[in-house]
C-alpha cells in the first residue's frame, strides 16, 4: 500500500483571496485543485509537477493537479491541499458524535491519471 498517503487540507492566502472574488472563477479553482506532494514521494510514484492524480478516500474521489515540495517543507507520506470543493468530496461523514467530520487528516489512495 505504498500509495496510501495522508492528505492535510488547509487554508492558504491564495485560496482566501480567491474565495472573496468568486468560488466560480479560475483563481479559486486553481488554488483548490492543486495538491502538494513531497518530491521524494513524487519520484517514487513516477509523478512530475503538473500531472493529474486521482485521490480516493473512503468517501469520495477527486482529480487534481500535483506539485512538488521539498522534504523540509512537507515530509514524505504527507500531502497538502487548500480547502475547496475537492476536499469536501474526500471528507468523512461520521462526526463521532461531535458534529465535526474529520477533514484535516484524510487517508487517501493516489493514482496517476495523466
Amino acid at each position, binding site marked *: 500500500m505504498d500509495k496510501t498517503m*495522508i492528505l*492535510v487540507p*488547509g*487554508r*492558504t*492566502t491564495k485560496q*482566501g*483571496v480567491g474565495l*472573496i*472574488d*468568486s*468560488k*466560480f472563477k479560475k483563481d479559486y479553482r486553481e488554488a483548490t485543485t492543486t495538491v502538494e506532494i513531497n518530491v521524494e514521494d513524487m519520484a517514487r510514484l513516477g509523478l512530475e509537477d503538473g500531472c493529474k492524480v486521482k485521490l480516493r478516500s473512503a*468517501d*469520495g474521489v477527486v482529480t487534481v493537479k500535483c506539485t512538488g515540495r521539498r522534504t*523540509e*517543507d*512537507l*515530509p514524505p*507520506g*504527507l500531502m*497538502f491541499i487548500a*480547502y*475547496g*470543493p475537492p476536499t*469536501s*468530496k474526500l*471528507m*468523512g*461523514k461520521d*462526526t*463521532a*458524535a*461531535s*458534529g*465535526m*467530520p*474529520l*477533514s*484535516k*487528516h484524510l487517508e487517501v489512495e493516489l493514482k496517476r491519471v495523466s
Partner: protein
Amino acid sequence: MMRVAEKAKSEGNIKIVEDATCTFCGCLCDDMVLTVDVDAKKITKAKNACVLGKALFLNYEEEDRPFALIGGKEATTAEAVEEAAQILANARFPIIYGMSDTTCETQRKAVGLMDMLGGTIDSTTSVCHGPTGMALQGVGESTATLGEIKNRADLVIYWGGNPAESLPRHFARYAVTAKGMYTPNRKKDRTIVNIDVRHTKSVPVADIFIQVKPGADFELLWALRALVKNRHVDPNIEKKTGVSMKTMKDLVERMKNCRYGVLFFGMGLTMTRGRHFNSAAILSLGSDLNEYTHFIATPMRGHGNVTGADTVVAWQTGYPFGVNFSRGYPKFNPGEFTATDMFVRGDADAGLILASDPGSNFTQAAVDHMKKIPMIVLDPKYTHTAKLARVAFTTAHYGINVPGTAYRSDGVPIELRTCLDSKYPSDEEVITAIYRRVEQLLIAKKRSKGANNKRQKAA
C-alpha cells in the same frame, strides 16, 4: 456619543472612513482606513489591510444580481420572504446554519426564529472550533484577550495552525512583533515556537519549530502534560511523535519558566482524529502550567464573527452551538443537533443557510441531502449553496454596507462601521421579515387546527 458607524470624513465623492473593521477573519482588525469613491461605489484604498483584507475591500462591488431567486427564477425580496416563510412554517425539523459572517443583531433574531419554529440552530463553529467548545465543557480553559498577550506574553506557541496565511496580521498586531507594555522590544522579548505536521508559512517567524508526526498531536500533548507534572512518560513517545525527549523537556522547561505563556491552536487539532480531546489536551496543558507561571491556551478562529455566533447562541439558550428547540426549550447535543449530522443523517426537512456555504464545504453525503429538501440561502454572493437552494436572497455585506456588532476570536465585541450603502436588504431585515411572516402562518395554522378539532368533536 455618536454611533460608531457614522464617523467618516467626506470630500466631494471621496469619503474616508477611519477605524473601520475588516471582517474577513477572526482577527477583526479595527484600524482600517478606507478610501471610498461614493459615486463609483468602490473602495479604492484599504490602508492597514492585509492581503485578505485588501481582497475583501478592494474587490468589493455591488454585483448586479436579482434581489432573490425562487427555484432559480428572479423574484422580489417580498416574494422570497413569503416562500421562505411557507417552507419554514411547514417544516418539522428545520435548521438554521451558518451565522459566522453576519452581525450579532442578525444572529439574535435568527435564534428567536428557531425558538418560535421549534427547529435547530447551529453555526460554522461545529465544523471549526466546536470541538474546543466541547473541550471547554470538560476541562475549562485559561484564556485572555489578545491585548494581554501583546502586553505580556514572552513565550508564544502556535500549534496546528497557520496564521501567516489564515490570520495574516496575528503576528504583527497581537503576538509576535507587536509592541506591548512588558514587551517593548517586540519579538526580541519573546520566544516563538511552532508545532505542526508540516513546514507552513508560519514557521519562519518561529525560534523553535517542532515537527510532529501526523495524527500524534494528542500523544505529544499528553506527554508534555505528564512532563509538566513530573509524571512517567514512556520513551516510546519519541518514535510515536517524531519528537525527541530532549526537545520535549526543553519545551517544558521554557513553558514552566516563562513569565506569561500562550498556546494558540488551530484546526490541526480540532479537525483531526481526537477532535475535542485534542482541544481538551491543549486546554488542560495550559491550565496545568498555571501551577508554575501564568499560562493561556486559546483557539485561533477563522471567520469574522464566528465567535459572535457562539456568544449569542449561548446567552440566549445556555449552549454555544448545535441547539434544538423541538420541544419548546433548548436542547444541546453535538453530533445530534449539529449541521453535518442533521444533513448526513437525513434528519433536517428544511434548511436556512445564513452567510455560509455548506454546499461547497460540507461532505458529499450532506450536500446530497441538501439537494433533496427545500433550502433557503442569505448571502451577498452567489454560492454553491445558493445554486441548490429553493430560495436565495441577495443581502448586503456586513461591515461594508451594514453596521452592527462582531466578536473578535478572544470575545472582544467590536462595532462595525459602514462605508457604502447597498440596495440589497441586510440579513437582519430579511430574517426579521421571515420571522413576522412565519409568526402569522403559525397562528393561522394553530387556529385551523383548533377549528378542525372543534369540527371533529362536533361530528
